[in-house]
């Protein structure tokens, strides 16, 4: 099976289940709205009773900064509030991940909110355990990263111009992304095995490691290629967003719609990753 076939299969699977992205977008948006409500209302109430005068002696962005500086005493409680939101969201997201993988990998491509949530609750504990078991792998990831980044740091430390500093910093970033992708691949694969083969977590890890020991580089390459395409599309999206003027209502509306479409694209991209990984795994698993 060629690269194109994996991508096609993954894409078909993702698009036929696009409703999942819609559910996720909706839930994430609700959480985000709750998270921004305190700061949003603070800014609104400080800026001329919901609207803004035309006579400004500063650019609008500085007015916002000024409001935040003037109310800096709310930062500490707001940070606590945000941390709480993120922590609660993390549990919620593990639940949602169950729904995402469950619906993405199910043969039945009928998607509705009840079977999405049912999958979430079905896989919640297994996914939570898979994440906990992943923590030692994260430790190995950081260790490996430090080890591989050491020569770059030495090169940067001995530099007599800025170039080695800039190049090594960006190479380190690239190294970080490549390594993280490799480790993330493992977690995704474990979850695919949990869902498709109804395995428990430990056996799923064993099977995933065994699979990766045979197919790691081609699987990683596929993942990175997909990642590159998604990153380029994101970059293009941001560049297009830059061109839209936010001085008029139409421009602002287009910006908001584009921003939300961008989020939907990222969610669909996540589905695409799962679809492609599944397609690759299902074709190659017999060769383990």
């Amino acid at each position: 099976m060629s690269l194109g076939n994996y991508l096609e299969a993954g894409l078909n699977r993702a698009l036929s289940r696009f409703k999942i992205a819609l559910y996720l977008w909706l839930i994430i948006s609700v959480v985000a709205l709750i998270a921004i409500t305190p700061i949003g209302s603070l800014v609104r109430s400080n800026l001329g009773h919901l609207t803004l005068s035309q006579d400004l002696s500063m650019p609008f962005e500085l007015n916002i900064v000024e409001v935040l500086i003037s109310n800096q005493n709310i930062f500490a409680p707001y940070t606590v509030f945000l941390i709480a939101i993120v922590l609660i969201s993390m549990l919620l997201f593990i639940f949602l991940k169950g729904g995402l993988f469950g619906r993405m990998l199910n043969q039945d491509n009928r998607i509705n909110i009840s079977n999405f949530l049912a999958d979430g609750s079905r896989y919640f504990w297994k996914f939570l355990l898979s994440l906990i078991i992943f923590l030692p792998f994260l430790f190995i990831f950081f260790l490996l990263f430090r080890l591989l980044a050491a020569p770059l740091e030495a090169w940067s430390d001995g530099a007599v111009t800025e170039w080695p500093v800039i190049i090594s910093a960006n190479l380190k970033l690239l190294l970080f992304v490549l390594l993280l992708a490799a480790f993330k691949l493992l977690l995704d694969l474990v979850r695919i095995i949990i869902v498709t083969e109804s395995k428990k977590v430990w056996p799923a890890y064993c099977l995933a490691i065994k699979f990766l020991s045979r197919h790691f580089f081609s699987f990683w390459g596929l993942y990175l290629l997909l990642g590159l395409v998604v990153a380029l599309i994101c970059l293009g999206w941001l560049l297009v967003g830059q061109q839209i003027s936010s001085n008029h209502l139409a421009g602002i509306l287009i910006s908001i719609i584009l921003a939300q479409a961008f989020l939907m694209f990222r969610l669909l991209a996540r589905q695409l990753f799962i679809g492609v990984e599944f397609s690759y795994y299902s074709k190659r698993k017999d060769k383990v």
Partner: protein
Amino acid sequence: MDGRIVLKKKPDTLKAVLLMFWFICLVFLKSWAGQAEDKPLRYDLEVELLPEVRMIQARGTIVWSNLSQDYVPDIQLHLYWNAFKNELSTMAKEARRETMYKRYQVRKDDWGYLKITSLTTVDGYDLMPTAAFISPDEPPNPDDQTVLKVDLPEPLAPGQSIILKLQFQAKVPQNGIRVGCYKDGFFISQWFPKPGVYEEGKGWNCHQYHLNSEFFADFADFKVRITVPQNLVVGACGEEIERIDDPVTGKTTYTFEQQDIHDFAWTASPRFIKIERWFRAEDQVSPEEYQTIAELLELTPEEIKLPDVRMILLIEKQHQHQAERHFKALMAAIKYYGLWYGPYPYRTITMVDPPFRTGSGGMEYPTLFTAGTSVILDKKVLSPEQVIVHEFGHNYWYGLVANNEFEEAWLDEGINTYSTAKVLEAAYGPSCLPVRFNGLPLNWLLKTPAIYDWQLGRLISGPVAKLDPIVKESWKFYNSVSYSLNVYYRAATCLQTLERYLGEKSWAKIMRTYHMRYRFKHPTIEDFIQVVKEVSAKDLNWFFKEFFFKAKDFDYAIGAVETRIKPEKFLGIFDDLPTKHSPQTKTNQDETTEKAGEKIYQTSVTLRRYGQARLGPEVTIKLKVEFEDGSLEWREWDGQSRWVRFNFEKPVKMRQAVLDPEAIWLVDTNLSNNYYALKGSREKISGLTGDFLWLMQSLLLSVFNLL
């Protein structure tokens, strides 16, 4: 290598006599217009750099004259590099106390020092036995070695001079502040024993080296011979008058001279490219510009004519492609500072792109300054330009008008920050805020607002208004952040406010008068206040008291706005007798344009004084109220009470109210509460809500993807 240096021996007595003769000639033959009148110092120094061991070895003479009416029993010298000698120096202790961020961290081999190995009078009297380190500032630090007190054989009578012969060696601190070296690149400042400033009746003004302070010294004539390995390119204060290559030793000796400066710094690096250009006043300033500025200052165009200046750029090879950008900024600075405050009086200016990792960027010295840039820059971000204009500007504020930076740092930093913003606005317009990641500019990807320097300055300095006053000894500020935000930005914001309050013309004359009157002198804030009072013919003591001498915030605001329909009938018992408070009686503040059968809207605007600082006598703040039919109402408030309420009755609703609509009181720490609109554009707020939401969604989505 043992670090010793062999200097050519010269007949000391003859040299001393010649030196004395030259000094007397300089004191009595003041042939150069605009030079320092009472110059108590002359330096004649020879220094050799030994890069392999990070050492400098030096010798020479310092002539100090007692221009006071006191008998002076001792001399006090700054030995600044001893601040980097150990962890017990005042500066190191202050750095450790800093909790917000650490500016000063050194490793074991990074320490530096300055050691006088010999100090005698010209006739050979050894002064070292009486030499002792002192710490004049509170709290005393007996471990600090940055001020050396030396007793003279006998008190120096008024008008007498003393010639000090000295030899010293110093190790260049690897991670110093404003000085440093990295591999074979060196930036050498504060490297020689420098006498403090003797103040008549008060004694020596010679402070320790503090974390949050710069310098104070007397005007002097310098002659400095610098010997370095031949592969190093050298730049220094003043003019290079001689260069001798020694093929035997492989070393080169440069001689630099400059009169009427109060410090001397130099730099050496093999990676410098030296480029020279001329600032030709004729090409840079048009007759119309001369005419405009002359009218503003009430001078003739001839009186403000600028001289040509030789500009020397020492730029690292990696930044060579930015040379023209550097020169353009420097020419703008020479032009505007010259036109507004007075002509640049020296023949050269040396601009140094500091050697990589020497920690010496963005620093000023007379006739020389360091800039600072990156290999990749965004055109929309005025990053090197801001530094170049600011550091050149210090030649005016610090270099020529040489206030005490230990005690009243705002007099140079605040005035110069204000001036920098004005030059950048005139020469470039607004600049985008920089966005960088891993050394790469990202402004092409992420849009940032174009703002003026002063707008950002007033914004960030607001929070420290209640922490410290602007006028305070540098080392007594709460921390480095409070020091820099108060001294640089809050002071500049106060000056911006004064300019708007007094008017452009009056302010321009104030600044020029202050500069020209105190060129080559050491003014204090009292001198500044006096000039403001004299030129503006206004007593602004209250302004300086509220904003410079006290830690108070200034925040006037629109506290509340209420609009309601006026009732057509009032309930209750009304007899026919007129009363003082009868509802039919109109107060002075009420405005009624009532017509029969028309709805009348009662609008009340409550102004609040949230800050502690208040307006001075006979000063008011304006309120502009705009109604839906386009009509305007103006009110003035003296701002003394905590609040005031203005009432209006109109057949239309209010559209918006703006306090201080002419934006005079920029010193207001929160301008956002100066606006109130009942109706208006919601686009910005909607866009902002969309941005907040998107940021939070993106954050949550990233967390989701990682789990």
